[in-house]
């Protein structure tokens, strides 16, 4: 007697037969029929035609039958909404049933019926169930709120269910608490700024109590929620850590990993010299190791996370190298991850072991794995200097095996070793050259060509070798072509006498016969260099290259910090910020590790961003996707800095330009170095070779920085009416978007100084401190001229008014609209972004009165195309009053003329960046009731005209 019998009826009249059975009088037959229907449903057959018949079976005392009907309803209600209404009555009745199991079942099922009409009927029963005496019903109802929110968010808010749900966090039953947290977290995901989970010490305490008593799944929800909390001080962090630590011994690996996340995050706030800190570090290792003895799928996720953890805190697992040794029957995805972590943990102490293992792996069957193992040997050589020699000899051994892909990988990594340790291992070049013919992969070919070019003076037949590659030049991939070009030019510079023909050949191949612009450009640059100044060419092409840094594959620090806050999530599996996910990004809040105030570590992050362009470039060039991460960095600048410069972002632009453009221009070996090394060495190369290119690059930076601007634009600025003197303050950053911090403000120009008047209001429950402010680059280079002076902590419900003097000496980037200003404000809680628009009259300077002659000349000089005409209506001012009013805003009247009953005013304005804006204003004086002004504005930068006009209008109207 098995259920497979339900699948056997595949005859044509099946539906008809079922219909008859469903309407049978016999209970047993009915139930069997419903079971058949469910069975068909599970395999994807369409049995929706039976809807009314199945619903008729719903009114029954038989719990199993009821459940089966419910199952059916959930599946098909959507497609038959009108029919589904029929079921509502039974649901409502069941919600009143004396048996809590029935009550819970009813409310649970109702929530799963995704039909709008039904949701309306659901509200009342749900409200009752949320307050039910039985915790089983309450916890089911809590989840139901999340379901309802998914269907109709507005309804849930209107009905006040969210507040009821928040109250459930204080429920006496731990399971109810856990489900309430789970439901709130899910709802919060679609409302990123809604402060739904307003965590304060009291709620945290409740959560921690519930943590001990609820189910494993509940523990995961609670731990994930705890991870969002920001403890007030290190004592609180320690006490939370103490209460979370026992979760590390849980049998459920998801609980363990969530606990690890909480600990990794809160640990950051503990003083390093604390005994407890050391204890905690020790406690973290065993559970992580245990995760690796679980099923392979669990291992995979664990390994991806461990990869982050060892980058952040290598000390935790430094003695556990052996657990990462690869086993023969590990799935490939586990093998590759283990290998990665082995290299991260490699140190002088364990390098012998690691190398022995890697050599073993290099003889395995799986090609991908073998390749990665060979590459790993190279990375070890670069990472652990003492082992370099051993690594090289291991690689040579592997080359001797003559296994094609092993040889190719080995050559690629040996090239990197040469770059790291110049003039040390060149003796092996001969061996490498023996394998020239077997190289068929572009990366390996390019690496080999680089080696030949770089060491041309030591290889007797370098010209022959390179010439042999040249024969099939057009069939090679771009990577190889570029490399070949560079290598031959190097060869020529080293041995000019014998290779003239060769170099001409390659230059003509690159410039005349190629469609690839990169190749052509590089070819032309070499050509011109060689023909105009061979000495300079030598300096450029054969310049000493900076050593490659030891670990270029590390995750960029800000991203790493963010990922550490997301341990155990998909983000941590993909090593990408949560914002990079398509669906999950509906509302992602950027999380950041908060270091203990004043601890050494907090200074680390700004370093990354602030290192000047003259310093060695940071090892990792953040890709476009990481720009946001770097913005975070920017805001970490200590609030005491006198001019919190926006330089980091400037530099970003410069770096991008260098990374993207320069290296292909200067193109030493940049392109081929790709792979493991990443872009950074090539950039270093570019910098070293041509420092003169820097200013140009910086000059061009704003254009590149566009990406950065775009990011800011997303924040959708709250527009500010462009006021004349001082516009009333408007809310720039609503509290909802900034975890309780509300910022309103306006701009004023007082005594020649632009001031940003801000009101900061704390609408959160906790005290806010450590305020700092920073602007993005903007059209007129506005920048804070001093730090944001919020000296006392801002307690809840307190408002503080600050005036921030601004200078116009900051970096410039054209914004859209022109007067848009993007601002980042930081406090102890987070960094918040908003944008506002300043009236352009803020940047009208006091000495803006032009000489009459100059005015005339300039007016004539500016082409008529640049003239813009505007009309200002409903102005009840005569020309003198207007002139006076305008003067208050640094708009100066140069001359006045009366023509045919109209007053003509000639006005001038000078902007902070030296741009003059001239205007001719025509005022109708004839009719005092109806005054219309015509304004024609001329300026060399016509894009400012509309904004200047706005100012005129506002000044005159107020």
């Amino acid at each position: 007697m098995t259920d497979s019998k339900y699948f056997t009826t595949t005859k044509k009249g099946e539906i008809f037969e079922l219909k008859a059975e469903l309407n049978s009088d016999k209970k047993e037959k009915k139930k069997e029929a419903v079971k058949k229907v469910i069975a068909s449903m599970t395999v994807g057959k369409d049995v929706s035609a039976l809807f009314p018949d199945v619903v008729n079976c719903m009114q029954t005392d038989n719990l199993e039958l009821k459940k089966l009907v419910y199952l059916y309803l959930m599946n098909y209600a959507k497609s038959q909404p009108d029919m589904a209404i029929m079921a509502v009555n039974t649901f409502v009745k069941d919600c009143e049933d004396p048996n809590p199991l029935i009550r819970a079942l009813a409310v649970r099922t109702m929530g799963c019926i995704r039909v709008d009409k039904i949701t309306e009927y659901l509200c009342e029963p749900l409200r009752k169930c949320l307050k039910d005496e039985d915790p089983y019903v309450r916890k089911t109802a809590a989840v139901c709120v999340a379901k309802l929110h998914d269907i109709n968010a507005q309804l849930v808010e209107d009905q006040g269910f969210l507040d009821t749900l928040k109250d459930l966090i204080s429920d006496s039953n731990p399971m109810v608490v856990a489900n309430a947290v789970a439901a709130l977290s899910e709802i919060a995901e679609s409302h990123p700024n809604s402060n739904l989970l307003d965590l304060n010490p009291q709620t945290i305490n409740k959560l921690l109590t519930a943590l001990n008593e609820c189910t494993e799944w509940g523990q995961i929800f609670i731990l994930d929620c705890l991870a969002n909390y920001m403890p007030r001080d290190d004592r609180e962090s320690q006490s939370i850590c103490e209460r979370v630590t026992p979760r590390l011994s849980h049998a459920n690996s998801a609980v363990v990993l969530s606990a690890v996340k909480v600990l990794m995050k809160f640990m950051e706030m503990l003083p390093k010299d604390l005994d407890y800190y050391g204890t905690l570090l020790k406690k973290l290792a065993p559970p992580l190791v245990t995760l690796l003895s679980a099923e392979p799928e669990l291992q995979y996720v664990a390994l991806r996370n461990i990869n982050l953890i060892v980058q952040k805190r290598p000390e935790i697992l430094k003695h556990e190298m052996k657990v990462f040794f690869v086993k023969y029957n590990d799935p490939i995805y586990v093998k590759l991850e283990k290998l990665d972590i082995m290299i991260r943990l490699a140190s002088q102490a364990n390098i012998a072991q690691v190398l022995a293992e890697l050599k073993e792996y290099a003889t395995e069957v799986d090609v991908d794995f073998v390749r990665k193992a060979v590459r790993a040997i190279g990375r070890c050589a670069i990472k652990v200097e003492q082992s370099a020699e051993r690594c090289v000899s291991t690689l040579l051994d592997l080359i001797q095996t003559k296994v094609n892909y092993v040889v190719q990988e080995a050559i690629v990594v040996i090239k990197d070793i040469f770059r790291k340790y110049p003039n040390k291992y060149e003796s092996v070049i001969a061996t490498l050259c023996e394998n020239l013919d077997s190289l068929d992969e572009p990366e390996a070919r390019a690496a080999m060509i680089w080696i030949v070019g770089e060491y041309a003076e030591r290889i007797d037949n370098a010209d022959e070798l390179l010439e042999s590659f040249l024969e099939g030049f057009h069939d090679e991939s771009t990577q190889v072509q570029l490399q070949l070009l560079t290598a031959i030019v190097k060869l020529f510079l080293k041995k000019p006498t014998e290779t003239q023909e060769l170099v001409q050949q390659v230059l003509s191949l690159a410039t005349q016969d190629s469609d690839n612009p990169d190749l052509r450009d590089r070819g032309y640059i070499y050509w011109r260099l060689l023909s105009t100044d061979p000495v300079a060419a030598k300096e450029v092409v054969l310049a000493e290259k900076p050593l490659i840094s030891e670990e270029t594959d590390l995750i960029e620090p800000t991203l790493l910090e963010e990922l550490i806050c997301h341990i155990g999530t998909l983000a941590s599996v993909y090593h990408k910020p949560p914002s990079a996910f398509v669906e999950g990004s509906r509302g992602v809040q950027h999380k950041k590790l908060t270091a203990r105030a004043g601890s050494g570590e907090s200074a680390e992050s700004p370093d990354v961003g602030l290192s000047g362009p003259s310093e060695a470039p940071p090892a990792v060039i953040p890709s476009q996707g990481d720009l946001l991460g770097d913005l975070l960095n920017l805001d970490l600048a200590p609030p005491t800095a006198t001019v919190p410069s926006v330089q980091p972002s400037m530099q970003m632009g410069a770096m991008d330009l260098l990374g993207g453009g320069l290296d292909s221009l200067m193109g030493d070996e940049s392109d081929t170095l790709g792979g493991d090394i990443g872009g950074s060495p090539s950039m270093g190369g570019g910098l070293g070779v041509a420092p003169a290119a820097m200013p140009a690059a910086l000059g061009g930076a704003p254009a590149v920085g566009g990406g950065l601007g775009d990011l800011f634009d997303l924040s959708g600025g709250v527009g500010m009416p462009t006021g004349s003197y001082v516009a009333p303050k408007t809310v720039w950053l609503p509290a909802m978007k900034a975890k309780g911090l509300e910022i309103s403000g306006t701009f004023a120009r007082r005594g020649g100084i632009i001031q940003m008047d801000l009101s900061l209001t704390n609408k959160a429950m906790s005290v806010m401190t450590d305020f700092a402010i920073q602007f993005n680059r903007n059209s007129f280079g506005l920048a804070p001229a001093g730090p944001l002076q919020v000296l006392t902590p801002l307690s809840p419900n307190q408002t503080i008014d600050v005036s921030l003097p601004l200078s116009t000496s900051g970096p410039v980037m054209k914004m859209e609209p022109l007067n848009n200003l993007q601002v980042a404000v930081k406090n102890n809680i987070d960094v918040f972004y908003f944008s506002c628009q300043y009236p352009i009259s803020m940047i009208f300077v006091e000495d803006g009165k032009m000489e009459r002659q100059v005015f005339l000349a300039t007016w004539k000089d500016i082409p008529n195309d640049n003239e813009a005409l505007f009309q200002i209506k409903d102005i009840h001012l005569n020309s003198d009053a207007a002139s006076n009013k305008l003067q208050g805003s640094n708009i100066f009247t140069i001359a006045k003329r009366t023509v045919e009953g109209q007053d003509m005013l000639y006005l001038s304005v000078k902007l902070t960046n030296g741009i003059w804006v001239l205007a001719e204003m025509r005022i109708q004086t004839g009719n005092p009731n109806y005054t219309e002004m015509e304004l024609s504005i001329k300026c060399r930068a016509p894009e400012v005209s509309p904004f200047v006009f706005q100012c005129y209008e506002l000044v005159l109207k107020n």
Partner: protein
Amino acid sequence: MIHSLFLINNAGDLFLEKHWKSVISRSVCDYFFEAREKAVEPDNVPPVIRTPHHYLINIYREKIFFVSVIQTEVPPLFVIEFLHRVAETFQDYFGECSETTIKDNVVIVYELLEEMLDNGFPLATESNILKELIRPPTILRSMVNTITGSSNVGETLPTGQLSTIPWRRAGVKYTNNEAYFDVVEEIDAILDKSGTTVFAEIQGVIEACVKLSGMPDLSLSFMNPRLLDDVSFHPCVRYKRWESERVISFIPPDGNFQLMSYHISAQNLVAIPVYVKQNISFFETGSSGRMDITVGPKQTMGKTVECLVVTVHMPKVVLSANLNATQGTYNYDPVTKILVWDIGKLNPQKLPNLKGSLSLQSGAPKPEENPSLNIDLKIQQLAISGLKVNRLDMYGEKYKPFKGVKYVTKAGKFQVRT
């Protein structure tokens, strides 16, 4: 949370789908099939697959892929753990977790899945509670049901679900009260060519079978609890007692459960019970090779090694093996290229040996990779770490239970490189 679940068999047929929220088209599984194809071996399918609108998180158990669909940021481990729980529940209910049993019990499967998740949130995953809600099928019950018309769904609220000990149901009654514990240790090890241990660790679990009436409160102590520094407990164990006294104190679930697992990685504590002397070589010419394997006892603590099996994954070019075993039988499968030598009991006086020649595909070059040996074995009445249970005390109930502890050591991932 978890949106949907698809069950897919090894042949790529989707044979069951369950949606906890809105219905997601099964076409989403095309991304899975793509990954499945790319992975060649079913074991190698990556556990997390990204699609444009969803994430597919899957596990592979008993030749079935459990593919779950998620749409928002959900901890992947949470999903994987849950999927394992589903597989275990099927195993628990139907004796085995296979396509056939799932199809045979499709309605129960559906009911179970419905009880295990609500809107993607786990609801009841403890086997004790599930069994109260939905009774497992037995031949007797299905006969009784047919005759009396009663159902296999529980009529009452599962009591345990609400108490502070959700894992135990109330009102348990047995005529024979008994509590048995199995200490099972598995040795994971990698030995290199010369027999030196590259890596070794012990994965231990204590499986319990507790059939005690009422609400017994047990505490289990060890002779040498210091061995255990990396432990994971069943939720019933009071962690504080363990921290302070190194005693495992708990109110047990009813029936079979895993009390704890532990992990011993300190190299000096991991004894390697056998050694393997092997020589596998391939000749440059003649398309042949030789093989010679001997297994002998090493640190067995005076116990007998049983169920000894040596498995060799041969290179692809090995066509057949012509060998002679002094003990046990060998079998070479030319399709999977796996050689299995089933030795049985290890006799220290007369060491088992397997020797002979291998023939390779003619003309093929000598294989590059070295085959790897996997060892399986079992030692009764021994926990290789030396862990020993001291005593088991029961509080809270008056009767005197039967108590028993068994030890067994097995080889886990025990690998010898050649």
